[in-house]
Each structure stands twice: as structure tokens, then as C-alpha cells.
């Protein structure tokens, strides 16, 4: 490891100078000649209704309007804006039951903001004016905001394909009794000495990426449709759009733009189908579709809320004997990602502790809430809020120390991870717990706060988590990468996966430079449009460095192999005895003997036969390394979070004083970028547990679609943050790296909830834990010293 000079350093970020000056081009910044402006007319007054009458004529006659298109002017085919269905085999797809249920423009409004028709005009203002002239009459339908309501007998069916509005439950064919896990749960619970059980509610959180979604689409004279989009999954969006519009993929081009934050909201499509439908209506003209913030709020998918019930049995000595859980989540009006989170919430549960018996049931029900889909963590914060609180309740009743209990019973190397049969290759969670505990002053503060007086109470809490690095073997983990060496021995790496701002392109460039033995500055990495770059599944499941980095490394190793093969002919030494540093190839045993890489790359490109002798000058051909790489594993990362909170028992306010995030990330390719992921994750995790939730009125209309009414942690709300990178190189990940993108937000959730428990002796089953809920809890149960809670 010590030999590496580029991996492990805070190499300068490749994208940030353009971002600092504002020159980075996001989708909304694109201006093209002849560009027209699109506007999607949406249903704002109802969350569930049928369109009785739609009259586009007045809008079509409005000044500056080019075309108005409704449901009858676009393909009747439906789509699924998520991409999960493309990431599994056909047989698994059939088993999961994923469906295409989204129309481009709807006649059955299933959530507030559903698209009714589209306007194409010469200016945004003209499009807005015309939108006000669309005449639409609705027949309101009953609004279902919970699973209980939508599955009730006689409820309006969202789609004939899913009777009872049950969008998804773990399929019997894969999960006997529709349950993940195994062992005799009921029997084990009967034998348990202590059983803790509760019904929880987990909230609907919004990604709140700073860039509202925007698109440009255009059909050229050859019939090729191009879509500029900030999707996290450009290649899968290419395939989805090609299928929707009956185009061969070569006529469906995707140009990925700079991404202004994703956090899952761009995992798949949002309004690409509407933008492309508009472009198809006006061939030759680019159409820009800029989503307003309040529009983005209701149309882009959010985190799955719902009811989460769990019980855990322990022996008196702390041994866990069984865990039984059920997550009943509320979809929005359409299917997208219905199978994903319902499964993964249980997968993260299964991956955490060594329960001899485990039963998890996951179900998704349609409701008339806004759409739900991928959000950073993908079911993990929901499980963390429930599991980690119940573990601490068990620890309190057993008199066990929550850190020691977790060290004893968490899964580790050789145990099954989230997918049975795929075992953990590395785990440094004990070190995360030890270093995190030391950083927060665990032992002293646990004792000190166990008995307190006064109205201001303090507490410290801990929570742990496991996640994944790519979703193999459940989902396809495939990346193609090409590296080509220029004649001056510089390298160009082509890799289709987008950098969402997390710094992945910088880290991938570090991996490429390190592998090739080239200086960082002599490697260029390009995302590439769909017609140039090879296949890549996209940025999901925290996979970009673990899977993409491995692909980049392999492509660079192939280029280096060709380079060494040619050097070996020149030096008369077998290739395996060569090494390269700073573009000079040398004999390992005799470093003075060597050749500059440039001499080989130049001779390969500018290849001439000596006119005097007829001898060739070196080996001909430009060196290119190519790999089509499938990840062999998912090396999960682990993390431990510690929180110290202060609860004002008179106002119910919870102030987070310190948050320690200690994470086992395998190896940090770029430590500053890794810290950035863990720090940013804390802000979103704190929001999940304390302040963030989308509210609906009884008619299903969003009540807080603005940054004023939806409460995120601001700079003054943030606690003192301590980030600890635990580096225990994974045997599989590139240079030992595991993932970090999602994990940072997960365990702060449980740690804060457990710190509140420690401070006032009360657990809260509904997130976010707002001051109102804290006060209500205190009034109902009274503040209790943690030290008095032991029962056994």
C-alpha cells in the first residue's frame, strides 16, 4: 500500500473549478439554436380523479404557442420510470412482478402533480400563459393516503394488474411464506427471556437536491432523438426511452449533463418521457423542459414511508434468539421501485446481527401520495430507526451496554451479508465502535447521563449499519470501460457512469493514474454520450468506485500489459519483470535499465518502416485497454454513529451537540471526498430522524413543498461533526475500497433516537421526532432516568 502515490491522496477534484466559477453546464444551462420551451400541465387540485373533459384549443391558439399535446397525441404505451426492471433477469422480473403503469399524459390522475398535457412555445412565459388556458374537468375519486385505506374492499383499483392495490409483496416463489429469513421464529420467541416489540412509522423524506430537474430533447433530420438529462442512469434511460418510443437504441441518444445532486431522485427517469414526447412533436427543434421547484417536489419520487412493526427476542444473557419484522410501505400512485425498498429494508435487517431465526415481510401498497422511489439508503434508514431503537430497548431491559452488545452480536467476516450465501469478505465494525466510542466519550457520558436532574437532559446514543457496494447478485453490476493511450503517453479513459458530485470521476482518475503508472495530470476521464461510451448500469447502490473503479483498474491493467509486452521486446526482459513509475518502464531488478512509455506509444501510432532498411520501427498499433466487467461481489461497508443530544423537557426541542460517524470504508481513494460523503450524510440522517417529512392534507395535496415549510438542517443547526475513516482494505474492492455514498446518513438516525432514549428514558416510534412528539411523550410517560429502566 505504501507504494501508492496517487490513490489515498486528496488529488484535486476534476470538476470543481468549473463549479466554483459557475461554468459547469447543468441541463438548465443549455441553450441551443432554435430552442423551444416545454411546459407540462399538471393536476394540482386533485390527488385522485378521472379526467372528464380536456380541451386544448384555447391554449393552442395562445400567442407564442407552437403545439399542444395531450394523451391522444403521444404513444399509448406505458412506462416504469424506475430502472430496476432492467437490472434483473427476465425470470426474476416475472417473479417480482414489475409493471409498466405510467402514461406520458394521464386520464386517471393518481397523485397531485400527475401530467395532463404538454405545451410547446417560443418562450417559457408564452408556455405559462397557455397553460392557464387549458380547460380540464375532473371527476374526483376517493383519496387513499395509507395502505389501510387503499386496500379496503371496494377501493378504486390503481391498475388491474395489482388487485387490492397491493403493488408488491415478497414473492412466494423466492421467499417461502412471503418472508425473507429462516429458522423457527415463533418457537424461538417462546423460548426468549425478554421480548421487545413495537409498531413504528417511518417518514416520507425528500431528496431536496439543489438542481431542479431539467431536460432538453431534440429530433434531428436523421430521425435520431437526443435527450440531455442529469439522470444517474444514462444507459438504462436510453433503453427505456428507446422502448417507449419504438426507436432502435442507435436512434436514441443520451447526453448526460453535470448533476446538481441526486441522492436517488435521478435513479431512472422523471420527466424524460414528456420532454422527448414534446421533441417528437416538433422535429428539428430542441425543446427545453425546466421543472419548477414546487413541481419537482411533487413529481420526483421520495423516500418510502409506512408502518414498520418489529419484535426481537433475547436470552437473559443478551443472546439474540429471533427477529420478526414487517414493513408495509406506502407507494405513490405508480409502481416504480415497489419491489426494491420492500425487499432491501429486510435485506439490511438480515445483514446486521446474528439472529438464529429471522422473518421479514415487506409489502408495498398504492396510495395517492406523491411517487416513492430511490432515496440514498434505499430502505436502510427506515430499518435503522426501528431495529436500532429496539436493540437499545433490549439492552436497557437486560442491563447491557449498547456498544458491547453490538460488538458481540453484529455479523462479520464469513457471515451472510444482505444476500444469503454472499458472505462478508471484510468487516472493521469493532474498530468503528471502539474509535467512535472514544471520540464521543461514551463510557463516561453513559454513566454521567444515566441519572440527571433539571429540565435540560443530555444523552449519548449509538447505532450501527451495514450497506452494500453495488447490488450484485440481486441486480446487474456491469461496467464497460475503455482506456486509450495517446502517442505522447497520456491516457483517455471512457466510462459512462455520471459523477453526481460525490467526486467519483476524480477517484476513478486516481485509480487509472495509479494503475497505469502515469501522473494524475496525464489522465483524462470522460463520461461520454451514449453513442460513444460503453455500457454502464449507472450510479446506484453506492457502486461507482467499487464496481466502476474495478472496471477502470482492469482496463488500465490491460493497457499496461500491452505496454509492457512491447517494452519487453525492446529491453529483452520478460514483461512480468517490468514495472512503471511516472511513465518510465524499468526492469524491477535493475531500475537503471528502462524505456520511456512515450517511446512505445509514439512508435505504435506513428509507425513507419525505415526507408533505408525496410525494418519496422517498433510494434504498430495504438494501445487500448478495454474491459466489460461484472462485479464478483458486493463487499458491504459498515458504520457506527454516536450522537450526543440535549433535550429541553419543557419545549420538546432536541439539539444535537455532536455526531461521530466512524465508517469502515475499506480504503479511501480520496479521503477528503470520503469525508464529504459521511458529513453530508449526517445532514440528511438528522433530517430523517428529527425534522423532515412531506405532509399531505386529507385530499392528498402537499402542504410543505418549499424549503421554508420543509425543515432541513441548516448550517446553524448542524452539530459538531467528527468523521473517522476506518481503513481495513477489502480483499476484493479496487485498492481495498468499499462504498461510502449512501452509508453516512443511515446510522445517525438510530444514534440520535437512542441518545434521546438515554436522555429522557422515552423511545419514539414515529419519525421525525419533532418537538411536538417529544412533549407529548413526556406528558404521557414522564421523563425517566435511563438508569432506572433495567427490568431483568
Amino acid at each position, binding site marked *: 500500500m505504501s507504494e501508492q502515490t496517487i490513490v489515498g491522496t*486528496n488529488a*484535486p*477534484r476534476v*470538476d*470543481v*473549478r*468549473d*463549479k*466554483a*466559477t*459557475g*461554468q*459547469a*453546464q*447543468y441541463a*438548465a*444551462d443549455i*441553450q441551443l439554436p432554435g430552442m423551444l420551451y416545454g411546459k407540462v400541465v399538471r393536476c394540482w387540485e386533485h390527488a385522485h380523479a378521472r379526467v372528464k373533459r380536456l380541451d386544448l384549443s384555447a391554449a393552442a391558439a395562445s400567442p407564442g404557442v407552437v403545439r399542444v399535446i395531450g394523451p391522444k397525441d403521444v404513444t399509448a404505451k406505458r412506462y416504469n420510470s424506475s430502472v430496476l426492471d432492467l437490472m434483473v433477469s427476465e425470470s426474476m422480473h416475472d417473479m417480482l412482478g414489475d409493471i409498466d403503469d405510467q402514461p406520458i399524459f394521464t386520464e386517471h390522475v393518481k397523485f397531485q402533480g400527475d401530467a395532463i398535457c404538454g405545451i410547446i412555445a417560443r418562450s*417559457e412565459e408564452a408556455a405559462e400563459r397557455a397553460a392557464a388556458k387549458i380547460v380540464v374537468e375532473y371527476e374526483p375519486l376517493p383519496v387513499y393516503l395509507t395502505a389501510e385505506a387503499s386496500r379496503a374492499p371496494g377501493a378504486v383499483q390503481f391498475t388491474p394488474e395489482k388487485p387490492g392495490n397491493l403493488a408488491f409483496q415478497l414473492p412466494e416463489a423466492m421467499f417461502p411464506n412471503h418472508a425473507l429469513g429462516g429458522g423457527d421464529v415463533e418457537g424461538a420467541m417462546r423460548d426468549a427471556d425478554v421480548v421487545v416489540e413495537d409498531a413504528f412509522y417511518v417518514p416520507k423524506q425528500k*431528496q*431536496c*437536491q*439543489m*438542481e*431542479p430537474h431539467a431536460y432538453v430533447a431534440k429530433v434531428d433530420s436523421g430521425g435520431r432523438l437526443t435527450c440531455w438529462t442529469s439522470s444517474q442512469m444514462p444507459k438504462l434511460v436510453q433503453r427505456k426511452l428507446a422502448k417507449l418510443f419504438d426507436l432502435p437504441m442507435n436512434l436514441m441518444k443520451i447526453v448526460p449533463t*453535470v*448533476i*446538481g*445532486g*441526486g*441522492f436517488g431522485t435521478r435513479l431512472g427517469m422523471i420527466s424524460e418521457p414528456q420532454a422527448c414526447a414534446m421533441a417528437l412533436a416538433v422535429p428539428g427543434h430542441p425543446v427545453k423542459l*425546466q421543472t*419548477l*421547484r414546487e413541481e419537482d417536489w411533487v413529481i420526483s419520487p421520495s423516500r418510502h414511508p409506512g408502518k414498520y412493526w418489529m419484535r426481537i427476542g433475547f436470552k437473559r444473557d443478551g443472546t439474540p434468539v429471533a427477529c420478526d419484522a414487517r414493513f408495509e410501505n406506502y407507494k405513490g400512485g405508480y409502481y416504480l421501485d415497489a419491489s426494491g425498498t420492500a425487499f432491501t429494508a429486510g435485506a439490511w435487517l438480515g445483514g446486521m446481527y446474528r439472529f438464529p431465526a429471522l422473518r421479514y415481510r415487506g409489502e408495498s401498497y398504492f396510495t395517492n401520495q406523491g411517487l416513492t422511489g430511490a432515496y440514498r439508503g434505499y430502505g436502510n434508514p427506515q430499518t435503522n430507526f426501528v431495529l436500532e431503537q429496539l436493540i437499545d430497548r433490549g439492552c436497557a431491559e437486560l442491563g447491557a451496554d449498547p456498544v458491547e452488545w453490538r460488538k458481540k452480536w453484529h455479523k462479520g467476516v464469513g457471515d451472510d451479508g444482505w444476500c444469503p450465501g454472499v458472505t462478508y469478505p471484510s468487516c472493521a465494525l469493532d474498530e468503528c465502535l471502539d474509535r467512535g466510542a472514544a471520540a464521543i466519550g461514551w463510557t463516561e457520558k453513559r454513566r454521567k447521563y444515566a441519572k440527571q436532574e433539571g429540565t435540560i437532559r443530555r444523552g449519548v446514543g449509538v447505532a450501527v449499519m451495514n450497506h452494500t457496494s453495488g447490488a450484485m447478485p440481486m441486480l446487474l453490476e456491469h461496467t464497460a470501460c475503455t482506456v486509450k493511450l495517446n502517442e505522447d503517453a497520456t491516457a483517455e479513459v471512457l466510462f459512462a457512469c455520471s459523477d*453526481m*458530485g*460525490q*467526486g467519483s470521476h476524480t477517484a476513478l482518475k486516481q485509480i487509472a493514474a495509479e494503475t497505469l503508472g502515469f501522473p494524475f495530470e496525464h489522465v483524462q476521464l470522460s463520461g461520454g454520450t451514449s453513442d460513444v461510451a460503453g455500457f454502464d448500469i449507472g450510479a446506484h447502490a453506492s457502486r461507482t468506485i467499487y464496481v466502476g473503479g474495478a472496471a477502470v483498474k482492469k482496463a488500465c491493467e490491460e493497457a499496461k500489459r500491452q505496454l509492457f509486452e512491447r517494452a519487453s521486446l525492446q529491453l529483452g526482459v520478460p514483461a512480468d519483470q517490468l514495472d512503471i513509475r511516472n511513465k518510465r518502464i524499468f526492469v524491477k531488478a535493475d531500475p537503471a535499465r528502462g524505456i520511456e512509455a512515450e517511446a512505445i506509444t509514439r512508435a505504435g501510432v506513428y509507425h513507419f518502416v525505415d526507408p533505408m532498411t525496410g525494418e519496422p520501427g517498433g510494434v504498430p498499433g495504438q494501445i487500448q485497454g478495454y474491459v466489460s466487467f461484472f462485479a464478483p461481489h458486493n463487499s458491504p461497508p459498515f458504520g457506527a454513529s454516536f450522537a450526543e443530544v440535549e433535550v429541553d423537557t419543557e419545549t420538546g426541542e432536541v439539539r444535537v451537540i455532536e455526531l461521530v460517524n466512524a465508517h469502515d470504508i475499506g480504503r479511501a481513494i480520496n479521503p*477528503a*471526498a470520503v*469525508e*464529504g460523503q459521511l*458529513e*453530508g*450524510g*449526517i*445532514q*440528511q440522517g438528522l433530517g430523517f430522524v428529527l425534522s423532515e417529512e412531506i405532509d399531505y392534507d386529507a385530499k392528498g395535496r402537499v402542504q410543505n413543498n*418549499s*424549503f*421554508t415549510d420543509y425543515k*432541513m438542517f*441548516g*448550517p*446553524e443547526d*448542524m452539530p459538531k*461533526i467528527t468523521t473517522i475513516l476506518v481503513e481495513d482494505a477489502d480483499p476484493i474492492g479496487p485498492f481495498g475500497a468499499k462504498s461510502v455514498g449512501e452509508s453516512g446518513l443511515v446510522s445517525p438516525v438510530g444514534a440520535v433516537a437512542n441518545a434521546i432514549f438515554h436522555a429522557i428514558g422515552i423511545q419514539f416510534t414515529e419519525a421525525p421526532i419533532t418537538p411536538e412528539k417529544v412533549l407529548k411523550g413526556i406528558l404521557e410517560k414522564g421523563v425517566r432516568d435511563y438508569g432506572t429502566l433495567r427490568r431483568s
Partner: protein
Amino acid sequence: MKNRDITLHINGEAYKLNVAVNRTLLDVLRDELGMTETKYGCGTGECGACTVLVEDKAVNSCLTLAATMDGKRITTAAGRADFGRLDHIQQAFVDEAAIQCGYCTPGMVMKTASLLAKNPDPSEAEIRHALEGNICRCTGYEKIVKAVKKAAQTMPGRAAAQAQPCKEVVQ
């Protein structure tokens, strides 16, 4: 809709414009002048992505009517960089890894400039308070606060911050 003739002094150059009185400064910068470095984040003054300097004061350009800015000196993020050479605030954001997706960054840079113009040596609490109107969803603010501290330490002499005379550009 009424129009008005105005002159905006943007990043050292004067622009003579005829704008509808309901046009925001953000729309004029982005749509009429192609200065897309100033970002649309919410349109309601809640996120700060569209922050520019008017004279030395940070304002949300999405809430500011362009017609009211006649004769004013306006600075955007691009105006603080000299053909790719970053100013000390932008450099501090780069050096401290305070930029992830970058969408809030131009606004953060402008808000920092206005803070440091008023208070060249802010405490951490003052920095956090000043940034309350600028939302970042990527960084948890940790490295942004560090970047502002560094920018304060690396701020060049006050003379450099004086306005440069404008050369005129007719639109």
C-alpha cells in the same frame, strides 16, 4: 407589460437593456444575457442558489426585479474569476473540498464575499449565521464553513476589492 430601459454594470461591463418590469434579475442574467453561472434553485428566495452581489451586498436575484437595478454594480461568480483564475474565495472552496454537486457553490461564493466585505474576520458562529439563507444538500456545511474561514485568512488587500471602471457593451 411595460418595459423599461436600464443599464446594468455586470462584472465590470455595462449592459444597456430594455426589460419587462416583471422580469427578475435572475431571468435577465440567465435567459437574456446567457450568464448561467447564477442558478435557479427555488425561485422564492429560500435556497440562495441565485445569490449575486449588488454593490457589496448579497441578494437573491430571483426576488429582485431587474428594472429596479438600473445603474447598479452587479457581480456574479464568473465575475470573480479572471479567465479561469479563481479568486481567493473560490480557491478556498476548491482547496477545502467544499464543492460536491456544485449547484449551490456560485451562491455560496457570493454570500461569502458579502460576509467578508462586512466582517473580514468572522467567527464560526457568524459564518454559520451568514450562510443560513444558502442551502447545501451535499456537504453538511462542514467543509463550506472551513472554506469560508480559509477565504477570510487568504483575503487580499482591500484595494483589490474596489470597483473597476466599466467598459460599455450595448445589447
